[in-house]
């Protein structure tokens, strides 16, 4: 364990605390959250009662500390509608979202990385232009529209795939494609840039000058060097996949966290929305940390800080 990672760990802890603080204060942007929690048309007394019940009549700083303390005990509160612990509700939906996100990640990485490498290596060829067009389409397709088109074509017209819901392995394919497309495009672009950057470095002709074939240079030198920016972007992109699931799950009636979030907003079930946002941010921060750990494994200049 070196200093670099310790520092990053501390930074992540600060980021988590910052996120919690931000979410706490966003909730108070509109005055106090009781208004958000009650159905429209609630009476003054209802509001007052709930305020006292939930402790919103106390000083803000006291509320904030309480809030942090509650989260530290991993307590996300109670759902206002279902009267169940938010943690349990989220836990029951999380596996579906993880399943979908993992499938989308396979699509995104499986296509994005090789396409990106090809675009860089085959620069200025017809193949590159073709791939660029492919990536641009992936990048410009709104997720919900591509989802609808996929349903229309494969489920309604061809009838080879289920249109919605979870029913066996087949059902994850279409949502995974819809969700993975944008991430695939991002991976392809980042990989292309990273590989192009490495291709322009002095060690490339030098490695060729010692007799390595171009392919060998790509595989044994360039890809490893290009990995660092890709790892960094991966963390951000996986977090974005989770967020993108909100729309895709709605389109495909996928019973994950995204659908839960949309339903909860409609039902003004605020503790659940907040729980999902906090979970998403926590995952994102953890992924960033993981990326930095990987980064330091790949790059000796960080791993061996202080040895030189």
């Amino acid at each position, binding site marked *: 364990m070196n200093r670099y990672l310790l520092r990053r760990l501390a930074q992540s802890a600060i980021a988590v605390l910052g996120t919690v603080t931000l979410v706490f204060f966003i909730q108070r942007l509109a005055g106090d959250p009781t208004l958000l929690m009650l159905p429209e048309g609630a009476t003054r007394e209802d509001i007052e009662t709930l305020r006292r019940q939930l402790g919103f009549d106390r000083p803000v700083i006291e509320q904030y500390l309480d809030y942090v303390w509650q989260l530290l005990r991993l307590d996300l509160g109670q759902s206002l509608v279902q009267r169940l612990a938010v943690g349990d509700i989220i836990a029951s939906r999380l596996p579906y979202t993880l399943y979908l996100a993992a499938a989308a990640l396979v699509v995104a990485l499986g296509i994005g990385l090789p396409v990106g490498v090809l675009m860089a290596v085959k620069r200025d060829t017809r193949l590159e232009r073709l791939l660029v067009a492919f990536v641009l389409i992936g990048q410009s397709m709104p997720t919900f529209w591509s989802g609808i088109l996929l349903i229309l074509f494969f489920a309604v017209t061809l009838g080879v795939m289920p249109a919605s819901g979870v029913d066996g392995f087949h059902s994850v394919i279409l949502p995974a494609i819809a969700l993975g497309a944008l991430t695939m495009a991002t991976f392809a672009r980042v990989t292309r840039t990273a590989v192009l950057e490495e291709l322009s470095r002095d*060690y490339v002709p030098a490695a060729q000058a010692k007799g*390595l074939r171009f392919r060998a240079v790509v595989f044994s030198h360039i890809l490893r060097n290009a990995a660092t920016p890709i790892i960094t972007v991966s963390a951000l992109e996986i977090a974005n996949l989770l967020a993108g699931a909100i729309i895709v799950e709605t389109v495909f009636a996928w019973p994950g966290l995204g659908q839960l979030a949309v339903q909860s907003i409609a039902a003004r079930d605020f503790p659940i929305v907040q729980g999902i946002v906090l979970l998403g941010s926590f995952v994102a921060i953890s992924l960033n940390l993981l990326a930095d750990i990987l980064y330091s494994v790949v*790059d000796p200049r960080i791993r061996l800080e202080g040895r030189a």
Partner: protein
Amino acid sequence: MNAPLLLVEDLSVAIGAARVVDGVSLSIAPGEALALVGESGCGKSLTARAIMRLLPPAARHAGGRVTLDGRELGALDADAMADMRGSALSMIFQEPVASLDPLMPVGRQIVEAVLAHRRTSRGEAAKLALAMLEEVGIPDPVRRMAQYPFELSGGMCQRVMIAIALICRPRLLIADEPTTALDVTIQAQILALIKRLRRETGTAILLITHDMGVVADMADRIGVMYGGRIVEQGEVFALFRRQCHPYTKLLLKSLPSLEGERRTRLSTISGTVPDLHSWPPGCRFNPRCPLAVDRCRTDAPPLAPAADAAHLAACWETARMAELDR
């Protein structure tokens, strides 16, 4: 003169529409050291890269032949050319630290060079690498083998590069500004090392440099480049004694020296090196040349024998060189 080891005939390289190397011809005998000297943008590095068939993406081969030991390099397929590199001819570069893969221990990078050409075990290759590191004067080579480029100084990295280049005993070493990025005292070490290895192995050298001092120290023969062309070529002592092209003469005169008068006006070459896309017609030096006449502005002079058969210059007005001394 016996058969040349390297023969370059009418080599041209283009970037876009600009011919940045324009009809360069030269030859190197076995064991000989030829220096290509010139300012940045004169095409000397691209000439070297074209010989290696390692041109940067923006540049492309635009004509001419390169023959090494009787084999035409341009006729080889990509894999056969890769096999030639590192074994028949190899190259070291200007930025030694950047020329090594930052994520790989230097020992493995030398081993890679061995394994590219010899069917041998990793262990055997590592032994060779170790011996080679010792040969290039790296103290404590066992420890150094496991270190990464960022842990070594520039001079050390250049020694590693030299080890990589020479480990398969090539007959030609192309050294592209090998000491430019290094400090003077380190430069002296590296130049001494290259001279020693050359004596021991008999490798021929194509030295690319802008430094007239390095040329005077290292080369048997010199080719002076300006604007993508060789403007003067000759044996080193003869060329320093007498220059047959105004560019060479003015360049040598403009250098401040470690002897002679101080705080005097240095002689200059007027104007600046033009952008490589706007070379003038005729002799490319004509806008800056005090001897230029009308013909220089329209017709490019060929590289022809000037002082004697072995001393060539590309100038119409070689006979008037003495005017530059006034």
